[in-house]
Each structure stands twice: as C-alpha cells, then as structure tokens.
C-alpha cells in the first residue's frame, strides 16, 4: 500500500498578502484546504497545525465563512534557535458561500491539527401538491 504513495512535496506556507492590519503582531498564513460538495452538504478540511479548539474561531456571517486560528508559541526556557525552516503565526481564510447553509446544523471537528467543517445545505422545499377544490 505504501509503495504506491508518492512523496509529499515540500511547500512553504503561504503568507497572507495585502492583509488588513492585524491586532496581533506576527505573520498570518493561509491554511491549505480541501473543499467538496455533496447533495446535502459542503465540507471544508483545513490544515491548522498547532491550533487547539480554544484558539479556533469559525464564523459564518451573511454568506462569508471565516476560519481564524491562533498559535501559542511553545518555547522552553533557555531555548536557542539553530535552524528555522518554518514560521508560526495565525491562520486566516475566508470563503464566500454560494449555497444556503443550515446554520443550526454546522459541525466542526478538530483532530490532529486538521479541521473538518460540515456545512449542511438547507433542505429544498418539498414539492407540495395543491389540490384544487
């Protein structure tokens, strides 16, 4: 099974360009996402390494979905940096949704630094037969 897997390409984290001024100092990154849609729901998977449940904000306002994750830097006393290949900072990503989402039924799970957000679509009004009397 593992023989057919390809090697993961090293990609630098994408820093948000032309961002609005942030209240917290430090870099802001765009998390990598997968987005797929089925008949009933829209699902967003986002890589948010280092973000805990308490540091994650998901907001759906009008039709803009925003995902904001904060990182708490882990630093031991007396730690000296020898090699820094990646930076840490906030994660921010926003999407405009074209579907009507059932706000009440949104589910979010954060496991091993991966967010899985399920956004169920509003059930279409069932066809109703109107009887003429």
């Amino acid at each position, binding site marked *: 099974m593992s023989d057919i897997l390809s090697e993961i390409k090293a990609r630098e984290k994408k820093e948000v360009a032309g961002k609005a001024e942030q209240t917290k100092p430090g870099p802001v990154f765009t998390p990598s996402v997968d987005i797929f849609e089925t008949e009933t729901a829209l699902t967003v998977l986002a890589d948010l390494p280092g973000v805990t449940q308490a540091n994650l904000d998901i907001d759906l306002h009008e039709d803009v979905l925003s995902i904001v994750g904060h990182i708490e830097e882990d630093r031991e006393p007396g730690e000296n940096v020898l090699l820094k290949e990646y930076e840490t900072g906030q994660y921010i990503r926003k999407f405009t949704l074209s579907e009507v989402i059932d706000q009440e039924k949104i589910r979010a799970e954060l496991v091993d630094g*991966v967010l899985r957000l399920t956004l169920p679509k509003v059930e279409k009004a069932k066809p109703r037969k109107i009887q003429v009397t």
Partner: protein
Amino acid sequence: MILKRLQNLPRWADPFDETGHLRQLMSDLGRRLYDEPHAGVFPFLNVSATKDHYIVRAELPGVKAEDLDITVTGDNLTLSGQRRILPEEENARYHRRERDSGRFSRAVSLQGPLDADKVTATLKDGILKVTIPKADEAKPKKIVIG
C-alpha cells in the same frame, strides 16, 4: 533523502582554516541569493537547543503516531512516515484540493554525541516535538576552581 548540516553551531575553530571560513561565507551568500531558508524536503523542521537537549519540531497535521517513524542513529535524526487522506463519498465534487498526502522522509544532522536511549516525542494538534538529550560528555560542564 537530504541531510542538512546545522550551520550555526559553535565549532572549535581552527585559526588557520581559512577555506572553512570562506566556505561558510559562500554558503551563507548562496542561501541569501536564492532566498532558501530550508532544505526543500517535507517536513520543514525547526531545531533548537538548550544546554541539555535538542528540540526538533515539525508541522504534521493529520499524521497519526502509528504512521510516523523516528530514529536516531549517531548524530542523525530521521523522520519518516506517511500522511493519509481518506477518500470521501463517491459523489463528492471537489472545489479545492490543496492538501497533500503521501510518504515523507527527512533527516537532520545534530552535533553529537546524543543520548539515543532517552529520546522522547510527542505529536499533538499536528505538531511533532522530538526532544533529544545530549550525551553527558556533550553537556557543558562547570569547572570549579579549587
């Protein structure tokens, strides 16, 4: 697999070794010119040290502990494993697919000697943290003048 030597570790410099110094300058210049602060191999690593141990961190979101191998041989730490992305429902229509899955293998060379028996690792919220104690003879010793 790419081994990356740590550049900034203090070394017992040979005052007559001009070529070593020159080589260092050239490599620094090269890195600055090409703006490449990393070895170009997944996963990227942040390495730091305290007086007793090295700390190696990597971002590995979605990687399970059982899919990760960590080995210490001599001065080298090797991380290898795979990141799986499970298939979704058949009728799922993808709008974006930016997350990668696959195998990876990365090694980093630390300035030894290391205490390979006491290496500890945690994988939490997608962040791997490996703590590698320096062997006793590599720790700084305080010498008391009697």
